[in-house]
Each structure stands twice: as structure tokens, then as C-alpha cells.
């Protein structure tokens, strides 16, 4: 991205032929169109409302090479993978290294009937035609430069299909590893998750790094939840200190479906999540749980949006943030209730805990309501640890660091408690402790 390095346009020209699925005319057009739009508009800048608090100019001075330009991905030791698994959980596992599926590190042998987990690259090369609807219909409403680049360069990712009435008892673990290669790499991932009528599953998108080298991960995940289906979706980010992560998450829900998102952002130098959930069928419900933990000079930006298109849908959103050091957090929660969406029940809350005087949060809840018979609420708080409570705990023999950890754990407790997968809950509890110990 630096002036001396290739521009996205030049990179695209040289890599276009190597992108998967280039035999498909619709996909070529999709990629070309996205790149065309990117070359017209470029990267977002602080002048864009949605990027007001997230300035990527410093990032653009660094150069990242698209990982797909490498002959093969860096070898990762199985022990490095094992260390990132949820202990004793025995989950089906798909591993991606620097944006590329790694069959040898994965274990998809125990998948239940009716459940498919595959590499998107493979799908695009073998039967890409089947993906046309999924890839073309769900364009984000306000695409920005990173999403356009994702569409242009997407080279792999997880394709997850939960068939009608199929049930995955154990969560499916999708592990995305940044290998810490000498040359800073950019990966472009696209995940497609669809749950057929009456199907039920939990999927964990888990982002990690081996070390703290600079990396760039550009990912878009599309979820389609059909009638009466339910998806528990975990997005866990604990990447290393040099990681930059830009993610789009687009969810479309049919009648009586249920979608629960657990978005834990704790890693990296910079994380940006654009989460957009469309309630398109009556009786649909979505719960968006978020937890962001940042210290040092970390920057975490969550932009969420829920659109109530039809009547009788319910949305709940709880985002909590803990910011220490000189960290910066951004939360934007947008709820739109369309004119037809009577009897909407929408609640949103964002609570923040600042552990240092230099940490900052910009929180912006927004309700946009066009229907008249609805129940909607929103709110946000920013606070610090209560010194009276800290003193009380210390007066009981608990040292200050431990007292702070107890109180932060208590603050995040309800978000963690909503995680129904016990191994992830344990991971989150441990993560909170570990972050505060630094």
C-alpha cells in the first residue's frame, strides 16, 4: 500500500488470472465491478461519517503483499494450532493460514449428516455456479473501499452449509491464522454460512496470529438464515499486536429464524467490524452481543446496524467495552424500523468502562423509526471503576490488580454469560483475565 509498492489496481491486474473461479463470467464481472468502484472512490477517510473516528491513513503507509500472490502458504506447526483450540471440546475444525484453507491442519471428519464445511476456493473452482446467488445478492448497502477490495480479491474462506432440519450439536470451529510471515501479508477472505429451514448450528470464526508481526486481514462473512433456522455465530478476534482486521458481517434472516452474534474483539492493532443484520421475515429474532477489550494503542471500531423490514421481529443488542492505556473504542449502533415493521421490539445498550484517563470511547446509538406501533429503546454509558468498591475489596485483603480484574470480569459478566458454548465462555473469561494482567 505504500507509495513504492503496487497499488491495488496494479495488484489486481497481475493477480486477476490467479483468482479462483475466474472461469465464471458473473464472478469476473463482480470482481471487476468492485475494483472499478474502488478505483473511483478509494479508501474511506475520516470525512466519511462511518469512518469519522477510524483513521486508516497511517495503515496505508505500510505495505502488505496479497497472500494469494505467494506460491504456497507458510508452514504452520500442528502444535501452534493445537494451542488455539478450545480444550476438550472436540469441535470440527477448519484451519486457514494467511487466508488459505489448510486441509492438513483441519479436521472435518466428524461432521454430522447434512452439514457441509468446505473451502470457498475449492467451491469456486469446482462448482462455483452454485454460489452465484449467495455471492451476488447480498451486497452491502453502503460498500466502502475495504469491502470492494474484498470482493475483488476474495480468494478463499469457509463455505458452511447447514442443511434443512440438520443440527450441529458441537460448534464448528473456523480458525484463521496469520502466520507472521517476514513479508507483511494481506489476506482476503469470504465466508458463506447458510442454514436451511429448521436447521441449527453454532459457528465460531476465530482469528489468531502467530506473533506480533504486521498483517492485514480483510474478511466478509455472509449469513443466510432460512425459515425457522437458528445460528449462534461467534466472532472471536485475538490477533497479535501488529494485526489489522477489517471485517464485514452481513446477515439476512427469514421468517421465525433466530440469529445470535457474539462478537469478541480483543486483539490486533486495529479492528473494524461492520455488522449488518436484516430481519426480512416476520417473527425473526436477533441478539447481538459484543465485547471489546483494548489496551495500549489498540483501536477497535464496531459499526452495527439492524434493519427491521417486516412486522413482529425482535432485536436485542448489548455491547460492552473495556478500554485501558491509550486505547480507542468506537461504537455505532444503528437500528432502522421500516414503515411496515409494526410491533417491532428493539433494544440496544452500549456500556463502556474506561480504566485509564487516556483511553477514549466514541459511542453513538441511533434509532430511525418509520413505523408507529413499536417498542424501541437504546442507551449508552461510559464509566470508570468505582473507587469505593476498589477500597472495599482491598480492605478485604484482595490486591488492587486482582480487585480490578474482579470488577472488570463482573462488568463483562452478562455478555460472557450469554455465550451458550461453554468452551467459548471459559475462553472469554480467561481472555479477560489475561488482558488485564498485561
Amino acid at each position, binding site marked *: 500500500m505504500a507509495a513504492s509498492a503496487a497499488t491495488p489496481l496494479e495488484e489486481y491486474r497481475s493477480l486477476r488470472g490467479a483468482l479462483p473461479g475466474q472461469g465464471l463470467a458473473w464472478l469476473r464481472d463482480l470482481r471487476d465491478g468492485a475494483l472499478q468502484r474502488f478505483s473511483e472512490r478509494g479508501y474511506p477517510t475520516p470525512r466519511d461519517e462511518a469512518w469519522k473516528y477510524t483513521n486508516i491513513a497511517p495503515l496505508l503507509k505500510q505495505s502488505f503483499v496479497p497472500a494469494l500472490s505467494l506460491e504456497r502458504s507458510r508452514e504452520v506447526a500442528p502444535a501452534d494450532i493445537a494451542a488455539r483450540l478450545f480444550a476438550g471440546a472436540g469441535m470440527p475444525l477448519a484451519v486457514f493460514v494467511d487466508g488459505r484453507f489448510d486441509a492438513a491442519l483441519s479436521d472435518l471428519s466428524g461432521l454430522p449428516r447434512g452439514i457441509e464445511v468446505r473451502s470457498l476456493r475449492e467451491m469456486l473452482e469446482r462448482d462455483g455456479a452454485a454460489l452465484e446467488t449467495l455471492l451476488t445478492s447480498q451486497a452491502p448497502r453502503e460498500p466502502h473501499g475495504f469491502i470492494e477490495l474484498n470482493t475483488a480479491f476474495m480468494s478463499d474462506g469457509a463455505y458452511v452449509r447447514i442443511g434443512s432440519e440438520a443440527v450441529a450439536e458441537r460448534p464448528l470451529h473456523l480458525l484463521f491464522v496469520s502466520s507472521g510471515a517476514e513479508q507483511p501479508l494481506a489476506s482476503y477472505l469470504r465466508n458463506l454460512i447458510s442454514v436451511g429451514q429448521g436447521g441449527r448450528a453454532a459457528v465460531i470464526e476465530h482469528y489468531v496470529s502467530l506473533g506480533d508481526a504486521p498483517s492485514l486481514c480483510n474478511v466478509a462473512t455472509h449469513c443466510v438464515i432460512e425459515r425457522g433456522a437458528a445460528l449462534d455465530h461467534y466472532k472471536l478476534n485475538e490477533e497479535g499486536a501488529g494485526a489489522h482486521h477489517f471485517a464485514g458481517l452481513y446477515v439476512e434472516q427469514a421468517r421465525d429464524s433466530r440469529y445470535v452474534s457474539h462478537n469478541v474483539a480483543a486483539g490486533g492493532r486495529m479492528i473494524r467490524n461492520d455488522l449488518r443484520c436484516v430481519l426480512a421475515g416476520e417473527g425473526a429474532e436477533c441478539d447481538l452481543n459484543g465485547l471489546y477489550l483494548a489496551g495500549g494503542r489498540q483501536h477497535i471500531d464496531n459499526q452495527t446496524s439492524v434493519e427491521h423490514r417486516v412486522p413482529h421481529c425482535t432485536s436485542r443488542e448489548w455491547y460492552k467495552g473495556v478500554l485501558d492505556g491509550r486505547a480507542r473504542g468506537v461504537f455505532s449502533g444503528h437500528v432502522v424500523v421500516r414503515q411496515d415493521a409494526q410491533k417491532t421490539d428493539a433494544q440496544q445498550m452500549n456500556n463502556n468502562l474506561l480504566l485509564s484517563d487516556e483511553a477514549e470511547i466514541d459511542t453513538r446509538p441511533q434509532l430511525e423509526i418509520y413505523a408507529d406501533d413499536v417498542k424501541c429503546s437504546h442507551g449508552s454509558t461510559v464509566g470508570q471503576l*468505582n473507587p*469505593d*468498591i476498589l*477500597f*472495599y*475489596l*482491598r*480492605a*478485604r*485483603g*484482595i*490486591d*488492587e490488580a*486482582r480487585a480490578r480484574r*474482579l*470488577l472488570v*470480569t*463482573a*462488568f463483562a*459478566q*452478562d455478555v460472557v454469560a450469554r455465550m451458550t458454548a461453554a468452551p467459548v465462555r471459559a475462553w472469554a473469561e480467561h481472555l479477560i483475565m489475561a488482558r488485564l494482567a498485561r
Partner: protein
Amino acid sequence: MSVPGQAAGAKTLRIRNLRAAVGDKRILNGIDLEIRPGEVHAIMGPNGSGKSTLAQVLAGRDLYGITADEFSYGGRDLLAMAPEERAREGIFLAFQYPVEIPGVSTVTLLKESLNAVRRHRGEAELDAMDFLTLVKRKLALVDMREEFLYRSVNESFSGGEKKRNEILQMAVLEPRLAILDETDSGLDIDALKLLADGVAKLRGPERSFIVITHYQRLLEYIVPDYVHILAAGQIVKSGGRELALEIEHQGYAWLEREPGAAGRPLAAG
């Protein structure tokens, strides 16, 4: 520090000319007090006389500017000890206004607290079973139901329940110097007896108590060795148990008239 015949681990609190202020506002104006192992001292006095400040300063609250010619416990300078160190050394403050701690259960608080104290003493942490057995025994002592353990500390507790929770913590931690800061206020007579029972069970040659109270009533149940009257940040009179009865009958106004009792007019109220 040890005195022949004294129980092991017993410590003396020594206070000479203790002064505390918040900004320009002087609250303690030269307290002298010595509390030897096994003794129970009651501190009485009107509102605003500095009783609670003394309790907070003993526990290590950092809101005050503090000076003293001596302020030590077991020979160690208290001003050099963080609140948690004091607690581990055996100082326990039953708060006048116990805080609510949303999201932290009473059982978690007790466990963290007890284990911190045990680690400090070089004892092993209790395992879950032993810990629960211990806590259940202490619960019975303060007549609290087990479900209290699993609720957030003091959250939506009544005033009396909060005070019982303080007594429960004292019973679990078994401190060497317990400071009860108006623990009796807001307690009905049954709870008062529980408090007195709790203190009686802990009372022994190695433990001492500072009982801060407005009312003589508590001292019928916890019989003090000494009673001190605090006024305008100074101990203006010390005596035996009978001093508490005098206060009960006459209030605090007579202190102003008694020559030598107070060097200057008392603070209001």
C-alpha cells in the same frame, strides 16, 4: 514486640498524635490510643466527631492527608502498608456503609478474600469443598440463607442484610483487630445479638476490637474494657464501661462544660 505469656501472633495497635485532614479540613486532631491484644475498646461520640474517619484511616483509605508520631500495628508502620496488606495482617473493618458490588457474588468475595489472607499467612488455599463447608457454618452463625452467597455483594440487600454480610465476612476471615463502624445501627435486637455472638465467638487473648457506636445498647452485649469519647477529632475522655452509661443518660453536651474534658468547644452535632 512479643510480651511473655502473650498469644502467638498477637499485635498491639499504637497511635500517637494521629492527625487526618481532607484538604484544609482537619478531621482528626491528635488521637492517642493503644489497643493491646485481647482488649475491646468502644469509641463513642457525636456525629462529625471523626469516628468513621478513624475507622477508614485504620483500614487504609487514601482520601486523607495523614501525620502521626506513631501509627503502628504489631510494630509495623501502618502508613507504609496498603489496605490489602493491613487486611492480611489481620485488620478488618466492618463498613458503616457496605458497598454494593454488581456482578461479584458474596461467595466469590469471601473466597478471594480468605485465600488472600491464607496465602499471606503461608497457609494453603482452601479447596472448594472445605471452603463451602466453612462458609456454611459461618452463615448459620449470622442466620443468613445460603442463597445470599450467590447474589451480588449487597445488591438489593436491606440495610440489616448488608450489616449481617459484614459480620459474615468477619466470621470467615477471623481478624486479629476488628473495627466495627456503627455495625449496630439499623440492626434489630435479634441481629444485634447475632453481632454480639459473632464477636463473643472471636473474642480471645490474641484478638482485639474497636467498637464504634452511637448507642450504649450494643455495649450491653459486647462488654468493652475501655470506652473513649471522641469529639472534634480528639479523644476527650476515656474510662471504663460506666462512661458509656453516662453518655446514655446525659448525651454529649456535658463534655463541653466539664473542665479539662475538651480543650475547645465541640464541633456541631
